[in-house]
């Protein structure tokens, strides 16, 4: 729960990275993702991690990224152990487990610094169908609402004697029924009300709706994007041209 909240939910912050055009942020995240995925030596990974952590520092989100690292550490260790059995090499296993962490951080960087509004903007500029974009943004908007619903449902059922902690696995799954059904039912009711509200405010009246906010990229955005592309190409080149030992 907290892992998700810490690492992937947006919070408004004033920083040079946050204020970049979201498409540029996506580009940078994607580049870091690819670079992490294809890194194969500890040095390479160390450099990539250092870069990402400095971006995080500049964006004032170091603490949250740090927390994500800690929560992902468990799974990372698991990967390490599995690989140890498979490859019997400490170094390879280390690479795999650190690579996992790097991938997580690269995606996390994007989501922490990009508001749902900007996400919508990115999706629109990718020319995704309007209904898809709307369904996505509405879903994101209602996440906090659903979380609150879930808490209230659990409270109500606990007050009727439901013991959520006790019991073996099968029992515990059965116990989720009194929580899941109201959650689903509420969501269905909510969707119905949303549909009515949408209709009443002329959703779907025109095929190309206008937008209150206009987004355009600044010179800075373009420079940063270009700069990152150059770095990306250089890095890939180095990977390929100068394969370093582990």
């Amino acid at each position, binding site marked *: 729960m907290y892992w998700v909240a810490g690492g992937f939910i947006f919070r408004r912050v004033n920083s040079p990275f946050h204020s970049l055009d979201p498409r540029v942020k996506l580009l940078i995240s994607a580049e870091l993702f690819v670079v992490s995925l294809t890194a194969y030596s500890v040095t390479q990974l160390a450099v990539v991690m250092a870069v990402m952590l400095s971006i995080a520092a500049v964006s004032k989100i170091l603490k949250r990224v740090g927390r994500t690292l800690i929560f992902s550490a468990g799974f990372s260790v698991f990967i390490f152990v599995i690989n140890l059995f498979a490859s019997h090499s400490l170094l390879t296993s280390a690479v795999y487990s650190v690579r996992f962490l790097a991938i997580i951080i690269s995606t996390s960087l994007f989501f922490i610094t990009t508001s749902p509004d900007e996400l919508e903007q990115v999706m629109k500029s990718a020319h995704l169908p309007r209904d898809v974009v709307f369904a996505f943004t509405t879903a994101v908007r209602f996440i906090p609402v659903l979380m609150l*619903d879930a808490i209230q449902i659990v409270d109500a059922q606990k*007050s009727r004697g*439901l013991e959520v902690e006790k019991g073996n696995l099968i029992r515990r799954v059965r116990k989720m029924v009194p929580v899941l059904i109201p959650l689903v039912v509420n969501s269905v009711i909510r969707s119905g009300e949303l549909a009515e509200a949408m209709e009443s405010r002329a959703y779907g009246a025109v095929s190309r709706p206008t937008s209150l906010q206009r987004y355009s990229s600044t010179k800075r955005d373009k420079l940063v994007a270009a700069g990152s592309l150059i770095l990306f190409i250089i890095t890939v080149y180095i990977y390929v041209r100068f394969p370093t030992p582990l």
Partner: protein
Amino acid sequence: MIEFRDVTFVHQTGKTALRDVNLKVEKAEMLAVVGENGAGKTTLVKHVNGLLKPTKGTVLVDGEDTTTKSTAELSRKVGIAFQNPDHQLFSESVEAETTFAMKNFGFSRELIDQRLNWALQFFGLEEYRNSSPLALSGGEKKRLTLACILAWDPEVVILDEPTVGQDAIQKEKLSGIIKMLRSTGKTTIIVSHDVEFIWPLQPRLVVMSQGRVVADGPADTLMRDEGLLEGARVMQPQLVELYQRLRRRPDSPFASVNDARLWITGPVVS
């Protein structure tokens, strides 16, 4: 029966919802907790069945500290009817819904049947015994949630905003149910901002504002204190307001307020 000792509660978000609350509720008392939305009323009652544990201070139910027991254990004695029926109805039938809690508490088969029959009959839901709870109307759902709580016969019954969205007829019925609870010796706590509903019941009134208990006394007395109500953003019952207005002028008809009734005598009454 219920005791709050210097209770302070701070949310995870950092917001202090209850401050230095001291409150004692005796067995069979009827209490109404009033205050604006956000004053801490619901937070207060959630401490009684252990859904929330105090950040500072102690909450005792029947002499036992709530931090030593789970909500499920405390619920055996303390039943809370929450505002939204859609947050709890889930069973395939009204019968299954009503017996859910009793099964959780481990009641015997005979006792469950007995209480089930009583509850369905009392709340007029017998005809829906085998129907799906989700197919009922809004008013019926509300009755069902009450039936589910009263079925296991808790000593303490807490109603959280029971009149929200209810029409006049439903409120009448609710009033009757609360009076029944009082007469059968249950400790009743009603959280509400509907003063017109509360006043005729003449409960002990606890006024909350910004996490504190700012007044605690008979409804009759407290409802006349305009300053108090203003400060807590609570409305005065209309008849009490009328009484205050009439009392302002020395030559006005003699008026008194007693037992939730307004008595007007003197020159006016023919």
